[in-house]
């Protein structure tokens, strides 16, 4: 079963620009599926439409086209029964600043039948949140932890995190990830996270979806993505050679004297090595794995030049 499913989702971002008619469509056609029990990361440049996509899923915005289904229910029909199983955290969420941490928790607790008081206590200590301090007096990191605590305490089936690590220092980030893992249950725990913090994402996420200008560029398993990208370094045996026509999935080729480098985007050990031998006979070939961050940058650059090429 898919815990989240969108088909051809489109939606607007509400602006304060009268000249734009108060709204601009930032999500044009988003189709993705999050299998239950998996962790899905939505990556994309600033302004790609990640936050709007999440708001559409959570029924904070109505779709102009297409649909989103969450926990098997159309987003427009989401109600208390579903919300009590969803933990939604976003930096944009308004907190009742006048409340203390303790008051926030006292306020949230009665809404959730599955609220775990022991877990609440444990996380409060783990996050080192001062219960009596007012939310408006907390630092950014503390505020995010307060949001996280109030969302984790009822052990939600689905966690939706909108740029949760933005602006958090490494210690807080670490605490955040530990907190999220604290409520993980094998099989009955799904996470949807939109993030730029690719390092965290790489370790946690089963699925990566890349959003580009309101459309899904692709959705792929982390394993497959990391498996098919390699940085290839070649040492030419007989001095410099001219780079002729290279396979299309060899990205960003560079040459300096006897050294050639490119990014293989469809790497397969034997096939790629064979292709290298054909292009560069008697050369020494080395393949290096790439981090998710490096892969994302390569893809983003390729997109940008494609867009420039199309515009030209």
């Amino acid at each position, binding site marked *: 079963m898919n815990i989240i499913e969108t088909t051809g989702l489109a939606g607007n971002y509400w602006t304060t620009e009268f000249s734009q008619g108060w709204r601009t469509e930032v999500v044009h056609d988003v189709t993705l599926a999050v299998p239950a029990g998996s962790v899905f990361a939505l990556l994309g440049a600033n302004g790609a439409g990640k936050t709007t996509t999440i708001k559409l899923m959570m029924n904070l915005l109505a779709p102009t086209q297409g649909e989103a289904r969450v926990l098997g229910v159309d987003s427009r029909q989401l109600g208390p029964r579903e919300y009590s199983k969803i933990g939604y955290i976003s930096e944009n969420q308004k907190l009742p600043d006048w409340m203390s941490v303790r008051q926030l928790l006292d306020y949230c607790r009665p809404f959730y039948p599955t609220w775990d008081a022991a877990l609440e206590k444990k996380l409060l200590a783990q996050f080192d949140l001062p219960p009596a301090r007012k939310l408006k007096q907390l630092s950014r990191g503390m505020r995010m932890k307060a949001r996280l605590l109030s969302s984790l305490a009822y052990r939600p089936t689905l966690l939706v995190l909108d740029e949760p690590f933005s602006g958090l220092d490494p210690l807080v980030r670490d605490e955040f990830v*530990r907190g999220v893992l604290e409520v993980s249950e*094998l099989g009955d725990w799904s996470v949807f996270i939109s993030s730029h913090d690719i390092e965290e994402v790489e370790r946690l996420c089963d699925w990566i979806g890349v959003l580009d200008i309101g459309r899904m560029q692709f959705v792929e398993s982390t394993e497959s993505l990391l498996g098919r990208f390699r940085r290839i370094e070649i040492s030419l045996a007989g001095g410099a050679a001219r780079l002729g026509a290279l396979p299309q999935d060899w990205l960003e080729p560079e040459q300096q004297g006897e050294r050639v480098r490119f990014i293989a985007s469809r790497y397969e050990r034997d096939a790629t090595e064979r292709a290298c031998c054909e292009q560069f006979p008697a050369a020494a070939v080395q393949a290096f794995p790439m981090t998710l961050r*490096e892969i994302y940058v390569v893809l983003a650059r390729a997109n940008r030049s494609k867009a420039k090429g199309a515009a030209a």
Partner: protein
Amino acid sequence: MLPFMIELKPGLAIAEQVIFAVKKAVVGGQMKPGAPFPSVRALSQELKINPNTAHKITAALVAEGVLVTTPAVGSLVAERGETDRKARAELLGADLERLAVDAKKLGLTLDEVQDGFAVQWRKLSRK
């Protein structure tokens, strides 16, 4: 704390790295037969990885006979088998490959490499 040493490198499949590290620890003697192995939950929290991945790792290690699961206690390191010598040699495979490529790029002969290796080996044996 985990009973095996590992430094997760980004870009490589996490499951493979952990499985390799565990095998190395078992074969190298840092993890003794019968020693408890962390639960899926503990593994996921210590390494800060997806619990699904932690589960895959444990399942793979059990399937390969490195770990055994007992209903009450959890996962334990399995008793040593006969394939150890070969398995131990295989663990060095990636390192040896890299060494061979580097040596060839530097234009070294097999003898030069072997001599250099022997020096390093003797240094360790003296300690």
